[in-house]
């Protein structure tokens, strides 16, 4: 019963059960934050670290994060790797296919701002935020799985602060 103590709720005990009065925002945010399904979308080197984060040692399942192959089922997209101009249209399309509310991680230097391919390179997009909105930036080349997890914790914090009334804002307008 650890969790019930943290609920901002009014609890009344009745014989054979009880009544809990709590905020809808809290319940929804709590459940959304602890079951973030991410889209398995590997672009380059960083994707290997994303896989490592999902595999045996780091085990993303502890966060309730399970990978899905389809954007329709995902809440969260890790843009893990170098996005070229050719690929950027597809990334945007994938983002638009995700159901609201959706979140985006820019994982690695490449997705943040072009990374090692910033100079002298004609084909790489200098930062994924030129195409889609980004919630969390994770620097590193590649970032360690620990930093990825730190990012996930930050995202959970962010989700827990959301209000239902904000959902109506059109996030998809880039």
């Amino acid at each position, binding site marked *: 019963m650890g969790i019930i103590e943290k609920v901002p709720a009014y609890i009344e005990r009745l014989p054979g059960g009880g009544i809990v009065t709590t905020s809808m925002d809290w319940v929804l945010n709590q459940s959304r934050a602890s079951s973030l399904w991410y889209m398995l979308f590997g672009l380059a080197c960083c994707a290997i670290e994303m896989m*490592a984060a999902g*595999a045996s040692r780091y085990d993303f399942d502890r966060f309730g994060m399970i990978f899905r*192959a389809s954007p329709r089922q995902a809440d969260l997209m890790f843009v893990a790797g170098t996005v070229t101009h050719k690929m950027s249209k597809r990334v945007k399309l994938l983002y638009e296919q995700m159901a609201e509310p959706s979140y985006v991680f820019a994982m690695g230097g490449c997705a943040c701002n072009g990374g090692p391919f910033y100079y002298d390179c004609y084909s790489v997009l200098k930062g994924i935020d030129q195409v889609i909105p980004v919630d969390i930036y994770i620097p590193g080349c590649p970032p360690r799985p620990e930093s990825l997890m730190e990012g996930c914790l930050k995202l959970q914090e962010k989700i827990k602060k959301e209000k239902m009334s904000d959902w109506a804002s059109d996030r998809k307008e880039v």
Partner: protein
Amino acid sequence: MDRPRFRPHAGKITVDNMIENKDLREEEFLINMGPQHPSTHGVLRLILKMEGEFIRDLTPYVGYLHRSIEKIAENRTYNQFMPFTDRIDYCASMPSNLAWATAVEKLAAIEVPERAEYLRVIMVELNRIASHLIWLGTMSLDLGAVTPFLYAFREREWILDLFEMTCGQRLTYHYIRIGGVARDIPVEFEKSCRAFIKDFRRRVDDYEAILTENPIFLGRTKDIGILPLDLAKDLGASGPTIRGSNYGWDIRKVEPYSVYDRFDFQIPIGANGDVWDRYMVRIEEFRQSCKIIEQALDGLPEGDTVRSKLPTVLRPPAGEVFSRIEAPRGEMGYYIVSNGDKKPFRVKIRTASYGNLQCLRPTSIGLKIADLVAIFGSLDVILPEVDR
């Protein structure tokens, strides 16, 4: 446009009835697979021409990960380009580093200290194991087996720990430098490495117990995607892909570089070049790599790890050079044209995956779409190597 319309059936719905009503049609259709698809290992896009479940034709479209690395090479000094070689084949960064280092050393006639050569061999072979582990994990995941994926990544983490204690990185190592290696191994390395080899031998047997004789796995891999040797040679396949087709082509043996001629190891080859043979070749390579690492650890000489008195900015003499090594995916080579400047005039990168990817079309035509996934997994293509 005249579209087929829904018409109510006359009578009961049976196959005969459907044929009579011309509701059952046969026609070829196109399927777009990728660039976002979990089993294309990155950003490969395939256009498949299907007839029912069967593939009639297939065209790979590449270039979704073209990072203009060859162009970048023209704007960097020889040492500055080293980190980019990590990112050409990120599953096996050490061999990429080694290929660049040997090419530049050949161009500038730089001798490498013996200890550095041995350390290079140890690191490259460890990386070969790590890279084959990623292949094992992803391929079995594509075939629907989740357990080997978790097992493979568990062992891979140990190798990454070894790399991390040596050079501080988990994926892009930048450890092998021109004229030697970046730094010596820490004292704990040898003990941990030997323990790993001992443990890993047992683990390979575990993988085999799960997969090799598993009837489902056999059904998915045996006699699927047969690559005849002539075709493999014509298409420029190399590495385990060509060795699976019963041909012992391994640069470590046919053109020994570094100190590979001092070690005793075999080149595993397959019998008829199907998916299962390519799988067995890689499994056997796990064991051979263990053997090489043990011999290298035993014979590790004392001494420097980097050639002293190298100029900070290297200016190799004008000329051109091609040097190749055996990377986990096959033959990897760099062709450098130098005009005596501190930057190369032109760099061409020969990677194994490009040749191996070409084998996908001839091997998978006529098979089912599920077999395509198995074949693609067994070729172990990695896209940044194809697009560069």
